[in-house]
Protein backbone atom coordinates (compact mmCIF):
# COMPACT_ATOMS: atom_id res chain seq x y z
CA UNK A 1 0.00 0.00 0.00
CA UNK A 2 1.07 3.59 -0.48
CA UNK A 3 3.60 5.59 1.46
CA UNK A 4 1.42 8.23 3.05
CA UNK A 5 3.87 11.05 3.43
CA UNK A 6 3.23 13.59 0.66
CA UNK A 7 0.14 15.69 1.15
CA UNK A 8 -0.65 17.55 -2.07
CA UNK A 9 -4.30 18.11 -1.27
CA UNK A 10 -4.05 19.35 2.30
CA UNK A 11 -6.01 16.45 3.67
CA UNK A 12 -6.26 16.63 7.43
CA UNK A 13 -4.98 14.08 9.83
CA UNK A 14 -7.62 13.13 12.36
CA UNK A 15 -5.99 12.73 15.73
CA UNK A 16 -6.28 9.44 17.56
CA UNK A 17 -7.91 11.09 20.55
CA UNK A 18 -10.77 12.10 18.29
CA UNK A 19 -11.55 8.53 17.25
CA UNK A 20 -12.63 5.83 19.64
CA UNK A 21 -13.37 2.34 18.37
CA UNK A 22 -14.58 -0.31 20.79
CA UNK A 23 -15.07 -3.98 20.02
CA UNK A 24 -18.01 -5.90 21.39
CA UNK A 25 -16.89 -9.50 21.25
CA UNK A 26 -19.41 -12.30 21.15
CA UNK A 27 -17.51 -15.28 19.83
CA UNK A 28 -17.06 -14.74 16.14
CA UNK A 29 -19.94 -12.27 16.01
CA UNK A 30 -17.86 -9.28 16.96
CA UNK A 31 -19.29 -5.83 16.31
CA UNK A 32 -17.81 -2.41 16.95
CA UNK A 33 -18.86 1.00 18.19
CA UNK A 34 -17.24 4.14 16.87
CA UNK A 35 -17.23 7.57 18.43
CA UNK A 36 -15.93 10.27 16.10
CA UNK A 37 -15.20 13.86 17.09
CA UNK A 38 -14.93 15.70 13.79
CA UNK A 39 -16.36 19.08 14.71
CA UNK A 40 -12.98 20.76 15.21
CA UNK A 41 -11.67 20.02 11.72
CA UNK A 42 -13.74 22.52 9.73
CA UNK A 43 -14.90 19.88 7.30
CA UNK A 44 -17.83 20.55 4.96
CA UNK A 45 -21.05 19.16 6.45
CA UNK A 46 -21.92 17.32 3.25
CA UNK A 47 -18.61 15.40 3.22
CA UNK A 48 -19.07 11.64 3.53
CA UNK A 49 -17.72 9.68 6.48
CA UNK A 50 -16.58 6.08 6.18
CA UNK A 51 -15.09 3.71 8.72
CA UNK A 52 -13.06 0.86 7.29
CA UNK A 53 -11.99 -2.26 9.14
CA UNK A 54 -9.03 -4.14 7.75
CA UNK A 55 -6.48 -6.77 8.50
CA UNK A 56 -3.78 -7.63 6.04
CA UNK A 57 -5.81 -7.84 2.82
CA UNK A 58 -9.21 -8.37 4.42
CA UNK A 59 -11.42 -5.34 4.33
CA UNK A 60 -14.91 -4.15 5.22
CA UNK A 61 -16.36 -0.70 4.85
CA UNK A 62 -19.10 1.05 6.82
CA UNK A 63 -20.97 4.17 5.75
CA UNK A 64 -21.31 6.62 8.65
CA UNK A 65 -23.28 9.27 6.75
CA UNK A 66 -21.93 12.79 6.55
CA UNK A 67 -19.95 15.16 8.74
CA UNK A 68 -23.11 17.20 9.33
CA UNK A 69 -25.32 14.19 9.96
CA UNK A 70 -23.39 11.20 11.21
CA UNK A 71 -25.47 8.08 10.77
CA UNK A 72 -24.24 5.00 12.61
CA UNK A 73 -25.02 1.94 10.46
CA UNK A 74 -27.04 -0.80 12.11
CA UNK A 75 -24.78 -3.49 10.75
CA UNK A 76 -21.36 -3.09 12.32
CA UNK A 77 -20.51 -6.75 12.26
CA UNK A 78 -16.94 -7.92 11.83
CA UNK A 79 -17.91 -11.57 11.36
CA UNK A 80 -16.26 -11.61 7.94
CA UNK A 81 -12.94 -11.46 9.75
CA UNK A 82 -13.64 -14.52 11.89
CA UNK A 83 -11.63 -13.69 14.97
CA UNK A 84 -11.29 -9.91 15.30
CA UNK A 85 -7.71 -10.24 16.55
CA UNK A 86 -5.47 -7.81 14.71
CA UNK A 87 -8.24 -5.89 12.95
CA UNK A 88 -7.38 -2.20 12.56
CA UNK A 89 -9.61 0.71 11.59
CA UNK A 90 -9.40 3.69 9.30
CA UNK A 91 -11.70 6.72 9.27
CA UNK A 92 -12.08 8.62 6.01
CA UNK A 93 -13.83 11.87 5.28
CA UNK A 94 -14.29 12.36 1.53
CA UNK A 95 -15.90 14.84 -0.82
CA UNK A 96 -19.37 13.89 -1.93
CA UNK A 97 -19.14 15.64 -5.26
CA UNK A 98 -17.08 17.75 -7.61
CA UNK A 99 -14.73 16.07 -7.39
CA UNK A 100 -16.25 12.93 -5.97
CA UNK A 101 -14.18 10.86 -3.55
CA UNK A 102 -11.29 13.18 -2.69
CA UNK A 103 -9.87 12.53 0.76
CA UNK A 104 -10.38 15.49 3.07
CA UNK A 105 -9.34 13.93 6.35
CA UNK A 106 -8.16 10.57 7.54
CA UNK A 107 -7.15 8.61 10.61
CA UNK A 108 -5.42 5.30 9.97
CA UNK A 109 -4.16 2.31 11.91
CA UNK A 110 -6.64 2.83 14.70
CA UNK A 111 -6.35 -0.05 17.10
CA UNK A 112 -9.73 -0.83 18.65
CA UNK A 113 -10.28 -1.00 22.34
CA UNK A 114 -11.84 -4.15 23.63
CA UNK A 115 -14.87 -3.41 25.79
CA UNK A 116 -13.22 -5.10 28.75
CA UNK A 117 -9.88 -3.49 28.01
CA UNK A 118 -9.07 -0.73 30.47
CA UNK A 119 -6.06 0.67 28.70
CA UNK A 120 -7.22 2.46 25.58
CA UNK A 121 -3.73 3.21 24.38
CA UNK A 122 -2.36 -0.29 24.66
CA UNK A 123 -0.72 -1.22 21.38
CA UNK A 124 0.54 -4.79 21.44
CA UNK A 125 3.69 -5.42 19.49
CA UNK A 126 2.65 -8.86 18.41
CA UNK A 127 -0.84 -9.91 17.42
CA UNK A 128 -1.43 -13.60 17.99
CA UNK A 129 -3.95 -15.15 15.60
CA UNK A 130 -5.32 -18.60 14.77
CA UNK A 131 -4.73 -20.26 11.44
CA UNK A 132 -6.23 -23.65 10.63
CA UNK A 133 -4.38 -24.08 7.35
CA UNK A 134 -0.81 -24.40 8.52
CA UNK A 135 -0.42 -28.10 7.91
CA UNK A 136 2.38 -29.37 10.13
CA UNK A 137 3.71 -25.95 11.10
CA UNK A 138 3.07 -24.90 14.70
CA UNK A 139 3.67 -21.19 14.31
CA UNK A 140 4.38 -18.72 11.57
CA UNK A 141 5.35 -15.06 11.61
CA UNK A 142 3.89 -12.68 9.04
CA UNK A 143 4.35 -8.97 8.46
CA UNK A 144 2.36 -6.29 6.79
CA UNK A 145 2.58 -2.54 6.84
CA UNK A 146 0.69 -2.17 10.07
CA UNK A 147 1.78 -4.95 12.35
CA UNK A 148 3.50 -8.22 13.06
CA UNK A 149 1.33 -11.28 13.44
CA UNK A 150 2.14 -14.58 15.02
CA UNK A 151 -0.08 -17.32 13.62
CA UNK A 152 -0.64 -20.40 15.74
CA UNK A 153 -1.92 -23.62 14.21
CA UNK A 154 -5.50 -23.72 15.45
CA UNK A 155 -5.97 -27.25 14.09
CA UNK A 156 -4.16 -28.24 17.29
CA UNK A 157 -7.07 -26.98 19.36
CA UNK A 158 -6.78 -24.24 21.97
CA UNK A 159 -4.52 -21.86 20.06
CA UNK A 160 -4.67 -19.18 22.75
CA UNK A 161 -3.54 -21.78 25.26
CA UNK A 162 -0.66 -22.79 23.00
CA UNK A 163 0.44 -19.17 22.69
CA UNK A 164 0.46 -18.88 26.49
CA UNK A 165 2.17 -22.21 27.06
CA UNK A 166 5.50 -21.82 28.84
CA UNK A 167 7.37 -24.19 26.53
CA UNK A 168 6.00 -22.39 23.52
CA UNK A 169 6.92 -19.02 25.01
CA UNK A 170 10.42 -20.10 25.91
CA UNK A 171 11.21 -21.61 22.52
CA UNK A 172 9.27 -19.43 20.14
CA UNK A 173 9.26 -15.88 21.45
CA UNK A 174 13.03 -15.30 21.48
CA UNK A 175 13.15 -16.54 17.88
CA UNK A 176 10.28 -14.26 16.97
CA UNK A 177 12.02 -11.31 18.60
CA UNK A 178 15.29 -12.08 16.82
CA UNK A 179 13.60 -12.40 13.44
CA UNK A 180 11.54 -9.25 13.85
CA UNK A 181 14.64 -7.20 14.69
CA UNK A 182 16.58 -8.80 11.85
CA UNK A 183 13.79 -7.94 9.47
CA UNK A 184 13.52 -4.32 10.66
CA UNK A 185 17.23 -3.60 10.37
CA UNK A 186 18.39 -5.75 7.48
CA UNK A 187 15.34 -5.87 5.27
CA UNK A 188 13.20 -2.85 6.13
CA UNK A 189 16.25 -0.66 6.79
CA UNK A 190 14.30 1.13 9.47
CA UNK A 191 16.12 2.85 12.33
CA UNK A 192 13.70 5.41 13.69
CA UNK A 193 12.35 4.93 17.23
CA UNK A 194 10.12 7.98 17.46
CA UNK A 195 7.16 7.25 15.20
CA UNK A 196 4.89 5.27 17.50
CA UNK A 197 2.40 4.80 14.67
CA UNK A 198 4.96 2.62 12.95
CA UNK A 199 5.23 -0.99 14.14
CA UNK A 200 8.95 -1.03 13.40
CA UNK A 201 9.63 1.96 15.64
CA UNK A 202 7.61 0.37 18.42
CA UNK A 203 9.65 -2.83 18.24
CA UNK A 204 12.94 -0.92 18.20
CA UNK A 205 11.85 1.19 21.14
CA UNK A 206 10.89 -1.94 23.02
CA UNK A 207 14.32 -3.40 22.30
CA UNK A 208 16.24 -0.37 23.55
CA UNK A 209 14.09 -0.29 26.67
CA UNK A 210 15.54 -3.63 27.73
CA UNK A 211 18.35 -3.46 30.30
CA UNK A 212 21.78 -3.36 28.70
CA UNK A 213 20.63 -2.67 25.15
CA UNK A 214 22.29 0.28 23.42
CA UNK A 215 20.66 2.67 21.01
CA UNK A 216 19.76 1.30 17.59
CA UNK A 217 22.85 1.24 15.38
CA UNK A 218 22.98 3.77 12.58
CA UNK A 219 22.22 2.63 9.06
CA UNK A 220 25.85 2.91 8.02
CA UNK A 221 26.98 0.66 10.88
CA UNK A 222 25.73 -2.51 9.29
CA UNK A 223 28.50 -4.58 10.82
CA UNK A 224 26.95 -3.86 14.23
CA UNK A 225 23.42 -4.98 13.38
CA UNK A 226 23.80 -8.65 14.27
CA UNK A 227 25.61 -8.01 17.56
CA UNK A 228 22.96 -5.50 18.56
CA UNK A 229 20.19 -7.96 17.74
CA UNK A 230 21.88 -10.77 19.68
CA UNK A 231 22.31 -8.49 22.66
CA UNK A 232 18.66 -7.47 22.51
CA UNK A 233 17.50 -11.10 22.38
CA UNK A 234 19.80 -11.95 25.27
CA UNK A 235 18.31 -9.09 27.30
CA UNK A 236 14.80 -10.15 26.33
CA UNK A 237 15.43 -13.69 27.59
CA UNK A 238 16.91 -12.40 30.81
CA UNK A 239 14.04 -9.99 31.42
CA UNK A 240 11.46 -12.75 30.92
CA UNK A 241 13.36 -15.56 32.67
CA UNK A 242 13.13 -17.65 29.56
CA UNK A 243 15.69 -20.21 30.67
CA UNK A 244 13.91 -20.75 33.99
CA UNK A 245 10.64 -21.23 32.16
CA UNK A 246 12.07 -23.99 30.06
CA UNK A 247 14.22 -25.43 32.82
CA UNK A 248 11.18 -25.83 35.00
CA UNK A 249 9.58 -27.89 32.27
CA UNK A 250 12.71 -29.84 31.36
CA UNK A 251 13.64 -30.82 34.87
CA UNK A 252 10.09 -31.83 35.67
CA UNK A 253 9.21 -28.86 37.83
CA UNK A 254 5.74 -29.06 36.41
CA UNK A 255 3.90 -31.59 34.29
CA UNK A 256 5.66 -32.42 31.03
Amino acid at each position, binding site marked *: *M*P*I*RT*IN*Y*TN*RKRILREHVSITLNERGENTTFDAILHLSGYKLPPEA*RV*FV*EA*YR*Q*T*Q*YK*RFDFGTVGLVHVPADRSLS*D*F*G*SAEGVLFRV*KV*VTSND*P*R*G*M*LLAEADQIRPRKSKDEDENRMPLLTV*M*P*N*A*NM*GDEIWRLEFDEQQTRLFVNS*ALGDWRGIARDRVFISLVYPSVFRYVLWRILHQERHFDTDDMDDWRSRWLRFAVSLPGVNNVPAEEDEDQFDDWIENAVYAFCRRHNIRALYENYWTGGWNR
Partner: protein
Amino acid sequence: MNLRRLNEQGIFQFSRFLDSVAGNDPWRYPEELLTDPKMTEKTVPAVEIERRILGNRFVAAQYLFNLFKKAGMGNVERDRGLWAWLSLFYFNELCPEDRDGRRRPGEIARWVPDPLSWRYYRHLLAGPYRIYAAHQDKPERAMLVLQGPLHKPGDIVEQFAARQEVITNRGIMEAASILYYDRDGGGPKRGAASKDGKGTVRRFMDILNQFDVTWDLYSLEAPDVLRMLPEEFSRFFPVPARDELFSKT
Protein backbone atom coordinates in the same frame (compact mmCIF):
# COMPACT_ATOMS: atom_id res chain seq x y z
CA MET B 1 -25.17 -36.21 -5.64
CA ASN B 2 -25.97 -34.38 -2.43
CA LEU B 3 -23.61 -31.60 -1.47
CA ARG B 4 -21.60 -32.31 1.70
CA ARG B 5 -18.70 -30.77 3.57
CA LEU B 6 -15.47 -32.42 4.66
CA ASN B 7 -14.82 -32.43 8.39
CA GLU B 8 -11.29 -31.93 9.75
CA GLN B 9 -10.53 -35.62 9.35
CA GLY B 10 -11.82 -35.50 5.79
CA ILE B 11 -9.72 -32.43 5.04
CA PHE B 12 -6.70 -34.26 6.40
CA GLN B 13 -7.40 -37.26 4.14
CA PHE B 14 -7.92 -34.99 1.17
CA SER B 15 -4.62 -33.23 1.82
CA ARG B 16 -2.87 -36.62 2.00
CA PHE B 17 -4.37 -37.51 -1.35
CA LEU B 18 -3.10 -34.20 -2.78
CA ASP B 19 0.35 -34.88 -1.37
CA SER B 20 0.37 -38.25 -3.09
CA VAL B 21 -0.70 -36.70 -6.39
CA ALA B 22 2.14 -34.22 -6.13
CA GLY B 23 4.57 -37.05 -5.50
CA ASN B 24 5.71 -39.97 -7.57
CA ASP B 25 3.17 -42.50 -6.37
CA PRO B 26 -0.27 -40.89 -6.74
CA TRP B 27 -3.22 -42.55 -5.05
CA ARG B 28 -6.33 -43.28 -7.02
CA TYR B 29 -9.07 -40.65 -6.82
CA PRO B 30 -10.84 -41.13 -3.44
CA GLU B 31 -14.43 -41.08 -4.68
CA GLU B 32 -15.65 -42.75 -1.49
CA LEU B 33 -14.37 -39.83 0.58
CA LEU B 34 -17.15 -37.66 -0.87
CA THR B 35 -19.84 -39.61 0.95
CA ASP B 36 -17.96 -41.19 3.86
CA PRO B 37 -20.08 -40.37 6.94
CA LYS B 38 -16.98 -40.31 9.13
CA MET B 39 -15.19 -37.80 6.91
CA THR B 40 -18.08 -35.65 5.73
CA GLU B 41 -21.30 -34.15 6.95
CA LYS B 42 -24.50 -33.20 5.20
CA THR B 43 -25.33 -29.60 4.45
CA VAL B 44 -28.52 -28.05 5.69
CA PRO B 45 -30.55 -27.68 3.61
CA ALA B 46 -29.76 -30.66 1.40
CA VAL B 47 -28.59 -29.51 -2.02
CA GLU B 48 -28.33 -31.58 -5.17
CA ILE B 49 -25.16 -30.79 -7.11
CA GLU B 50 -24.24 -31.84 -10.62
CA ARG B 51 -20.91 -33.27 -11.58
CA ARG B 52 -20.51 -31.42 -14.83
CA ILE B 53 -17.81 -29.62 -16.72
CA LEU B 54 -17.84 -26.11 -15.33
CA GLY B 55 -15.70 -24.75 -18.13
CA ASN B 56 -14.26 -21.56 -16.72
CA ARG B 57 -14.11 -19.41 -13.59
CA PHE B 58 -17.13 -17.29 -14.51
CA VAL B 59 -19.43 -20.22 -15.26
CA ALA B 60 -18.30 -22.07 -12.13
CA ALA B 61 -18.87 -19.03 -9.93
CA GLN B 62 -22.25 -18.36 -11.51
CA TYR B 63 -23.36 -21.97 -11.11
CA LEU B 64 -22.33 -22.17 -7.46
CA PHE B 65 -23.70 -18.73 -6.63
CA ASN B 66 -27.12 -19.60 -8.07
CA LEU B 67 -27.04 -23.03 -6.45
CA PHE B 68 -26.42 -21.63 -2.96
CA LYS B 69 -28.82 -18.76 -3.47
CA LYS B 70 -31.64 -21.02 -4.63
CA ALA B 71 -31.03 -23.35 -1.69
CA GLY B 72 -31.00 -20.45 0.75
CA MET B 73 -27.52 -21.30 1.97
CA GLY B 74 -26.03 -18.22 3.57
CA ASN B 75 -22.53 -17.52 4.84
CA VAL B 76 -20.85 -20.15 2.69
CA GLU B 77 -17.78 -18.03 2.01
CA ARG B 78 -15.98 -19.07 5.16
CA ASP B 79 -17.08 -22.71 5.11
CA ARG B 80 -13.72 -24.35 4.41
CA GLY B 81 -15.09 -27.89 4.68
CA LEU B 82 -17.69 -27.14 2.01
CA TRP B 83 -15.13 -25.70 -0.40
CA ALA B 84 -12.71 -28.53 0.27
CA TRP B 85 -15.48 -31.01 -0.58
CA LEU B 86 -16.35 -29.10 -3.74
CA SER B 87 -12.76 -29.05 -4.91
CA LEU B 88 -12.54 -32.80 -4.32
CA PHE B 89 -15.83 -33.27 -6.18
CA TYR B 90 -14.57 -31.33 -9.22
CA PHE B 91 -10.99 -32.54 -8.87
CA ASN B 92 -10.71 -33.86 -12.41
CA GLU B 93 -11.41 -30.46 -13.94
CA LEU B 94 -9.49 -28.50 -11.32
CA CYS B 95 -6.37 -30.60 -11.70
CA PRO B 96 -6.16 -31.86 -15.28
CA GLU B 97 -3.33 -34.05 -16.48
CA ASP B 98 -0.51 -32.24 -18.19
CA ARG B 99 1.25 -33.39 -21.34
CA ASP B 100 3.21 -35.95 -19.36
CA GLY B 101 0.06 -37.36 -17.83
CA ARG B 102 0.86 -35.83 -14.45
CA ARG B 103 -1.44 -33.81 -12.24
CA ARG B 104 0.05 -30.93 -10.32
CA PRO B 105 -2.25 -29.79 -7.53
CA GLY B 106 -0.02 -26.98 -6.26
CA GLU B 107 -0.37 -25.37 -2.87
CA ILE B 108 -3.01 -26.45 -0.37
CA ALA B 109 -4.70 -23.02 -0.46
CA ARG B 110 -5.95 -23.93 -3.96
CA TRP B 111 -7.93 -26.80 -2.44
CA VAL B 112 -8.71 -25.94 1.16
CA PRO B 113 -9.40 -22.25 1.66
CA ASP B 114 -8.04 -20.32 4.57
CA PRO B 115 -10.92 -17.93 5.29
CA LEU B 116 -8.75 -15.58 7.34
CA SER B 117 -6.00 -15.11 4.82
CA TRP B 118 -5.60 -13.31 1.52
CA ARG B 119 -4.74 -16.74 0.15
CA TYR B 120 -8.47 -17.40 0.26
CA TYR B 121 -8.68 -16.11 -3.29
CA ARG B 122 -6.28 -18.80 -4.42
CA HIS B 123 -8.92 -21.43 -3.82
CA LEU B 124 -9.87 -22.65 -7.26
CA LEU B 125 -13.63 -22.45 -6.61
CA ALA B 126 -14.10 -20.22 -3.56
CA GLY B 127 -11.90 -17.56 -5.20
CA PRO B 128 -14.09 -16.95 -8.27
CA TYR B 129 -17.25 -17.50 -6.21
CA ARG B 130 -16.28 -14.75 -3.83
CA ILE B 131 -15.51 -12.33 -6.65
CA TYR B 132 -18.80 -13.17 -8.35
CA ALA B 133 -20.71 -12.67 -5.08
CA ALA B 134 -19.05 -9.29 -4.51
CA HIS B 135 -20.19 -8.17 -7.96
CA GLN B 136 -23.46 -10.09 -8.08
CA ASP B 137 -25.45 -7.10 -9.36
CA LYS B 138 -23.22 -6.97 -12.46
CA PRO B 139 -20.62 -9.75 -12.44
CA GLU B 140 -19.41 -8.84 -15.94
CA ARG B 141 -17.63 -5.86 -14.43
CA ALA B 142 -15.17 -8.31 -12.88
CA MET B 143 -14.76 -10.32 -16.07
CA LEU B 144 -11.04 -9.67 -16.14
CA VAL B 145 -10.59 -11.80 -13.02
CA LEU B 146 -13.40 -14.25 -13.73
CA GLN B 147 -12.21 -15.33 -17.16
CA GLY B 148 -9.97 -18.27 -17.80
CA PRO B 149 -9.84 -21.95 -16.88
CA LEU B 150 -10.38 -22.97 -13.29
CA HIS B 151 -7.01 -24.60 -12.82
CA LYS B 152 -5.04 -21.57 -14.01
CA PRO B 153 -6.25 -18.35 -12.35
CA GLY B 154 -3.14 -16.56 -13.58
CA ASP B 155 -1.08 -13.59 -12.54
CA ILE B 156 -3.76 -10.97 -13.20
CA VAL B 157 -6.07 -12.58 -10.65
CA GLU B 158 -3.21 -12.67 -8.20
CA GLN B 159 -2.54 -8.96 -8.69
CA PHE B 160 -6.13 -7.91 -7.98
CA ALA B 161 -7.32 -10.56 -5.58
CA ALA B 162 -4.49 -10.08 -3.13
CA ARG B 163 -6.24 -6.92 -1.91
CA GLN B 164 -9.83 -7.26 -0.84
CA GLU B 165 -10.54 -3.55 -1.09
CA VAL B 166 -9.50 -3.74 -4.73
CA ILE B 167 -11.16 -6.98 -5.80
CA THR B 168 -14.48 -5.90 -4.28
CA ASN B 169 -14.26 -2.35 -5.60
CA ARG B 170 -16.84 -1.82 -8.32
CA GLY B 171 -15.28 1.20 -9.98
CA ILE B 172 -11.79 -0.27 -10.08
CA MET B 173 -12.82 -3.68 -11.32
CA GLU B 174 -15.03 -2.23 -14.01
CA ALA B 175 -12.26 0.10 -15.15
CA ALA B 176 -9.78 -2.80 -15.17
CA SER B 177 -12.11 -4.96 -17.23
CA ILE B 178 -12.69 -2.12 -19.71
CA LEU B 179 -8.97 -1.68 -20.04
CA TYR B 180 -7.64 -5.20 -20.07
CA TYR B 181 -10.41 -7.65 -20.93
CA ASP B 182 -10.69 -8.62 -24.58
CA ARG B 183 -14.39 -9.25 -25.14
CA ASP B 184 -13.84 -10.78 -28.53
CA GLY B 185 -11.04 -13.05 -27.47
CA GLY B 186 -12.59 -13.87 -24.10
CA GLY B 187 -9.34 -13.30 -22.20
CA PRO B 188 -6.90 -10.61 -21.16
CA LYS B 189 -5.60 -8.33 -23.86
CA ARG B 190 -2.17 -9.06 -25.18
CA GLY B 191 0.54 -7.54 -23.01
CA ALA B 192 -1.79 -6.77 -20.10
CA ALA B 193 -0.11 -9.27 -17.81
CA SER B 194 3.46 -8.34 -18.74
CA LYS B 195 5.77 -7.96 -15.81
CA ASP B 196 7.10 -4.72 -17.15
CA GLY B 197 6.09 -2.20 -19.76
CA LYS B 198 3.76 0.74 -19.92
CA GLY B 199 0.13 0.57 -18.96
CA THR B 200 0.19 -3.04 -17.76
CA VAL B 201 -1.88 -4.47 -14.93
CA ARG B 202 1.10 -4.13 -12.62
CA ARG B 203 1.39 -0.47 -13.52
CA PHE B 204 -2.35 -0.09 -12.95
CA MET B 205 -1.89 -1.41 -9.43
CA ASP B 206 1.04 0.96 -8.86
CA ILE B 207 -1.06 3.89 -10.00
CA LEU B 208 -3.93 2.84 -7.76
CA ASN B 209 -1.54 2.94 -4.82
CA GLN B 210 -0.72 6.52 -5.76
CA PHE B 211 -4.40 7.45 -6.16
CA ASP B 212 -5.11 5.87 -2.79
CA VAL B 213 -3.14 8.62 -1.07
CA THR B 214 -5.44 11.33 -2.39
CA TRP B 215 -8.66 9.58 -3.26
CA ASP B 216 -11.11 7.29 -1.58
CA LEU B 217 -11.00 4.56 -4.18
CA TYR B 218 -14.33 3.13 -3.14
CA SER B 219 -16.09 6.39 -3.95
CA LEU B 220 -14.81 6.38 -7.52
CA GLU B 221 -16.71 4.97 -10.45
CA ALA B 222 -15.10 3.40 -13.48
CA PRO B 223 -15.11 6.59 -15.60
CA ASP B 224 -13.46 8.49 -12.71
CA VAL B 225 -10.67 5.93 -12.57
CA LEU B 226 -10.19 5.82 -16.33
CA ARG B 227 -10.15 9.60 -16.63
CA MET B 228 -7.36 9.89 -14.10
CA LEU B 229 -5.04 7.35 -15.67
CA PRO B 230 -1.95 8.77 -17.34
CA GLU B 231 -1.23 8.55 -21.04
CA GLU B 232 0.75 5.32 -20.81
CA PHE B 233 -2.55 3.41 -20.44
CA SER B 234 -4.00 4.66 -23.71
CA ARG B 235 -2.82 1.58 -25.62
CA PHE B 236 -5.28 -0.53 -23.63
CA PHE B 237 -8.25 1.78 -24.03
CA PRO B 238 -10.95 0.40 -26.28
CA VAL B 239 -12.00 2.26 -29.41
CA PRO B 240 -13.35 4.92 -29.28
CA ALA B 241 -10.30 6.30 -27.60
CA ARG B 242 -10.21 7.71 -24.11
CA ASP B 243 -10.76 11.33 -25.00
CA GLU B 244 -13.77 10.50 -27.12
CA LEU B 245 -15.16 8.30 -24.39
CA PHE B 246 -14.99 10.85 -21.66
CA SER B 247 -14.87 14.30 -23.18
CA LYS B 248 -18.64 14.74 -22.75
CA THR B 249 -18.77 13.81 -19.08
